């Protein structure tokens, strides 16, 4: 049985640890601090914790002001509101201001409730456009970790690297895919399985699906390379090119609209470096709907985001290329 972990809990715990080490770390929330698990940080560091209320535009711009003064603000709420509610503020107050070689202000936008797996709250609250929104804004780096190990390591990492980051977590508990010793580097993918017949590049909760797909394909004699491309921007272009050369085909998977999302980012690299056939697994440009926790697998299935869909995509590429 795979160990399940809660990204948000790890996020909250990690914040306290880095908050102890670095007095410049501050946290801003928007009436979701309980849900985002940032409240314990506020208990521990009351003068470095600000609840702005249900006002995401204000939240993000206040965070920009804090960063302008040398603070390292972690601004957190649900993905549907951040970026959804405050693209202008992210663009103009955080990403745009640049001086002394530092591009963008040092705000860490860490959100939860990304993608369809929000579940019961329904389509209005299932953010499937955030990668697209955030990656087209210059200076913003975009991360989608696959599990709680990645969350812990990446939160620590982005607190140490200057610049605006957007990082999306999932609402529900997620299985561990990384070992606790795994090292992370911004802009570098992690090869989880090596293989020669096809590449599966994934992010977020779909990394686990990619591994399952690779396992089942292996039994059919198809050897897949599986890459966790948690760093969507900057993206690991050399790793993608190498994978294209070595395996001749790439399937991507994401819990996001396939338009302008993760798969698109990978295909941009592939088409400019070493074009090979690709398939993108993700939401096909439509909205989600409510699903209770027990039904989320059905919701994902309806949108074609399962290990089976990934495996079929691999087989599809292979059938068309020989």
């Amino acid at each position, binding site marked *: 049985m795979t160990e399940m972990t809660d990204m948000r809990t790890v996020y909250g715990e990690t914040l306290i640890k880095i908050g102890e080490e670095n007095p410049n770390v*501050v946290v801003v929330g928007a009436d979701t601090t309980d849900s985002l698990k940032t409240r314990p940080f506020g208990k521990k560091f009351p*003068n*470095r914790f*600000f609840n*702005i*209320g249900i*006002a995401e*535009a*204000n939240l993000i*711009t*206040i*965070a*920009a*002001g*804090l*960063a*302008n*003064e*040398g*603070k390292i*603000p972690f601004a957190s709420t649900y993905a549907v509101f951040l970026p959804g509610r405050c693209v*202008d*503020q992210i*663009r*103009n*107050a955080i990403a*745009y*201001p*640049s*001086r002394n070689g530092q591009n963008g202000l040092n705000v860490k936008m860490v959100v939860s409730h990304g993608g369809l797996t929000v579940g019961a709250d329904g389509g209005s609250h299932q953010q499937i456009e955030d990668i697209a929104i955030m990656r087209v804004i210059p200076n913003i780096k975009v991360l989608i970790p696959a599990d709680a190990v990645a969350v812990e390591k990446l939160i620590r990492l982005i607190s140490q690297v200057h610049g605006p980051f957007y990082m999306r977590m999932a609402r529900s508990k997620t299985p561990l895919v990384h070992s606790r010793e795994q090292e992370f580097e911004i802009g570098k993918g992690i090869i989880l399985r090596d293989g020669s017949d096809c590449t599966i590049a994934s992010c977020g909760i779909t990394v686990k699906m990619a591994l399952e797909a690779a396992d089942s394909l292996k039994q059919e004699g198809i050897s897949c390379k599986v890459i966790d491309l948690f760093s969507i921007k900057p993206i690991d272009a050399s790793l993608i090119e190498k994978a294209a050369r070595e395996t001749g085909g790439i399937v991507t998977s994401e819990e996001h609209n396939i338009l302008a999302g993760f798969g698109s980012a990978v295909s941009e690299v592939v088409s400019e470096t070493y074009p090979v056939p690709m398939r993108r697994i993700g939401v096909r440009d439509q909205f989600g709907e409510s699903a209770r926790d027990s039904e989320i697998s059905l919701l994902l299935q309806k949108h074609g985001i399962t290990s089976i869909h990934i495996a079929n995509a691999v087989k599809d590429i292979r059938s068309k290329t020989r």
Partner: protein
Amino acid sequence: MGLNYYHILKRVREARKLVIRGTTSAGSGHPGGSFSMAEMMGCMYYKYLRYDPKNPLWPDRDRLVLSKGHASPGLFSNLAVAGYFDKSEIESLRKFESILQGHPDYKCPGVEFCGGSLGLGLSFSIGIALAARIDDKKHHIYTIIGDGESDEGQVWEAAMAASKFKLDNITVFLDRNFIQQDDYTERVMPLDEELIGDDISEMWKNAARWKVGDKWRSFGWNVLEIDGHRIEQIVKAVNSALQTKGTPSIIVARTIKGKSVEHMEDNPKWHGVAPNPQFSPIIELEIDCQFLTAPSIIAGDMANLENEVKRAVHGRADFIHLDVMDGMFVPNKTFDHEKIRQLRPVTQIPFDGHLMINEPVKKVKNYVDAGCDIITVHAEVCDESSFGEIHDVLRSNEVSVGLAINPETELPSWAERFIPDLDQFIVMSVVPGKSGQKYIESTHEKTQKIAKFLAERKFEGLIEADGGVDLSNVESCFLDGARVFVGGSAIIEQKDVRGTIAEFRKRLMHARRKLLIHKAYSLGGTELVNKWIDLHEVGKKKLELLQIAKEAGFV
């Protein structure tokens, strides 16, 4: 400490001219909103803000966040005057690879916020203010927001948050100029009461219509409402804001869009349009030709000078002119610094102290301490050394420096070296000593000569006409080169002080229009005169201009 009135005024004027230079060179930009906030910017950069142009990111500096970023020329021009970069840089405004982008940008040293997308600046200021609180820093954050900008909901999110966090290290200026891009604010989205008709002066007249202060009050803010073009009101409001603890403050400043350039004033068209370069010299002259009235209270009831000050205040005087006579330098005696001290609490309007006394160097500090904002001493009783001493005492106390000469006196040669640094120069047009004398006609010629002489020697202050100035001669005094007008019996002796001052202003405005029409004619003949007149769309200005041009035979 005085207001440092002329120190601010001169720089505001220079910054305004740089706005014209920049936007004209760029061919676009926003002069209107740059001018409505000009005096507030002046008070900020030349009185309140602590900063170091050589070290723009000095951590303890005060921050000025221009949230209404489209008024960037109004910011850049002041950064230039404050010494962040060379003034000639203003001509690169909005051009390729310039540090002066269309909206405020960190490319330009001294810019504290990349503004332009409206509604963000106050939230950003809150972030700065919270960081200062964490670090126990004492710097202050000033934020300028627009009235059109206040349509943005985020302004009100920020209003709530600043109040919640009790950010008394934030002071906001609301530049209430009643105009946004499309139209008058009250038509686009009312902040006060919906405007009926075209006359926005209606909004000004009736304070009962002003609601926006109440909005901020209801959000828990300390609200101060002022005329945003009057330096003394800005200063009083900022002082009050800085002393207010536990809540943020907002200064609701009623202003005029395009202030100081008549054809731009109150005309929504000048929100975001640059002037045509052929008009720049005329506009610059207009900016140089702002005028002030200074009623002299000794013309009134000497037994109740408090009341005379109040009448002048009610009359909307720019200065209160205080004729101090000691019975020695002049035969009469009026009052001394003790009286001025008693009068000081009556108003914030600048006290324009005219010391007709012997040995002013020995007594000038008393007048500083009594609350004078401008002190003028007589050349007849000074020499280079004593005037130098007076100058230093006044400067170090932020009191503006004036020098006066009697009708029979010529400008002494020792005074020449002080000319570039003088704030005010009085050419007496009566023999000083008593109120109610007749203007000495030869003063016109003398003033013209002196104006030219001073201009050639980099004089940046204003000439004050003092003695027998009345409605019949104030226009010619203006055309001589005077810009401050002392009215004794002609104002204070009149029953309706406000009406009389208004009439003075009307005559002065007429004289200024005449001067500008002549300037236009000298630059471009009838064609330019006609074009200049056509710019004046709002109100009845156009008719008067046309009349002036006809009388001069220009059209």
